[in-house]
């Protein structure tokens, strides 16, 4: 029996919805308000709530720092990679028109990928910062 049953039950109830909402803000960002940064923060907030309720050790099993670090770099590389691919296809850096045969499809694809890169990096860095602060006191 845990010492904080209410907190843990509520956290268990909320965390999946927070993560789902994060993904919604991420992938609906092309059409409505939202985008990678907000989505990354919401996603990270879900995992931080998990860490607050169940402790740092369990959170580090779910989101191992050894995985988060490369992810924080990969998000940036995804962003820059989209820019470079556009450049190789004959456009400017980040010229989304050149990502697909149809410019409008290219714009869609470009924004989706770039925002996904932002989301990955922001979520990973947010959690890493949280771990760094919490880990210090232990």
């Amino acid at each position, binding site marked *: 029996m845990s010492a904080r049953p209410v907190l843990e039950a509520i956290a268990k109830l909320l965390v999946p919805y927070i993560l789902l909402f994060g993904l919604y803000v991420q992938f609906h960002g092309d059409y409505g308000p939202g985008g990678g940064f907000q989505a990354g923060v919401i996603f990270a907030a879900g995992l931080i709530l998990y860490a607050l309720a169940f402790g740092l050790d369990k959170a580090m099993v779910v989101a191992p720092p050894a995985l988060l*670090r490369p992810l924080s770099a990969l998000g940036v590389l995804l962003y820059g990679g989209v*820019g470079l691919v*556009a450049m190789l296809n004959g456009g*400017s*850096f980040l010229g989304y028109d050149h990502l697909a045969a149809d410019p409008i499809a290219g714009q869609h694809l470009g924004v989706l990928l770039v925002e996904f890169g932002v989301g990955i990096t922001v979520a990973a860095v947010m959690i890493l910062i949280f771990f760094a602060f919490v880990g210090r006191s232990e």
Partner: protein
Amino acid sequence: MIAAHLPALQVVVPLLAAPICLLLGRGRWAWAFATAVSWLTLAIAVALLSQIGNGDLPGYAFGDWPAPWGIEYRVDRLSAFVLLIVSGIAAAILPYAWRSVAREIPPEQQAIFFTALLLCLAGLLGITITGDAFNLFVLLEISSLASYTLIAMGRDRRALTAAYQYLIMGTIGATFILIGVGLLYMLTGTLNMADLAIRIAPLQESRTLHTAFAFLVVGIGLKLALFPLHLWLPNAYAYAPSVVTAFLAATATKVALYALIRFLYTIFGVAFAFDAMLTHWILLPLSLAAILSASLVAIFQDDVKRMLAYSSVAQIGYMTLGLALVSVTGLTAALLHLFNHALMKGALFLALGAVAYRLGPVRLTGMAGLGRQMPWTLAAFVVGGLSLIGVPLTVGFVSKWYLILAAIEAGWWPVAALILIASLLAVLYIWRVVEVAYFRPRPAGAEAVTEVPLALLAPTWALVLANLYFGLDTRLTVGLAETAAAGLFAGVAR
């Protein structure tokens, strides 16, 4: 095809190399990769300079958005000049970094160290090349945040407080710049520098414009370490790792000076900045105070790194003094000193880094008798010191010559005299080191010290030789600086 993309690649290459560096994980690989990238950025800067030599001004529209709406990169002689020195210093310092970093940074932090160094480089190059006022702020934050991290990695625990102090002061500066840019945007509805210059011209009486101007000058003044806003600098330079001190001293304040010149001349224009706002009457006393007071304080420092840090504050005073003279010669002198001071301080701090490699923290007393035991390192320090003083045949002489010329041209004899007096102060603080290193015996019981490896000596001497080369052959530096200065005064991009 690749030639058209060079302005973007100048920043994109180090920016994307940074996360790759983090992924490489191992310190040695990260270093080798970062070194290769720094050489590539230097090659790009040289290629951009040759494009300008062929008569065109390379520009770039990000994401295919045309200029006033999208982010534009624009290279003229001024930016190409600063790009060359920043990427050149990076290319000289990174080969040096491995040995020094292996000694000063714990292995698990080495990859992060090189990641932050590349990010800082990307930010500094970006500030120099961008034609967009808001983009300048973003890149300034990239380079600043990276440099706070780099300073905090110093071995001494005081590096943490120094980095924190710099973080607070730097953030205030960046916020002021952001407020200034925001006010300009409110007033004109544009962020593109060339477009801003056109739209500001009829608004000279606007109170909002005056406020924006004040915020920008003070904000950049903080990043520039303009006296009396320099308080963050001595500690940051003194406690940062050797490589970081050399890199930041040679590039960060220079790029801030570039930003000041860009805002004063290209965006606000000479007529507004000097005739209406009288900026030179603020810059002149502050520059003279910086030159004299920081040189005096430098004489009484026991920590040699700290001594050179105060000397940097004084040298920044020479550069802003060039601006305060409001003449083509004065601006030429400021630009020349920007380039030349990067070479001198780069060489001096690398030589000190080599001493630190053997001795740890460099106190003046600890350097006693080193002249015999580390002849090449100390010889590099002496030549760098002579250049700092302004002895003929070195770059220091070239920039001081133009500065004194500009002061006499303006009829300000006392200023010319003060420049000479301040040079004598530089003789004093450099002589203290020379005297201790060459004319005092190694203290009894001190462990024997040998010369540092070639990996540290070669980059140091490369910069020392650059000090001599550009002191003799001034065609490139003076030619670029004069043309850029004349263009800035005429209000046309050259």
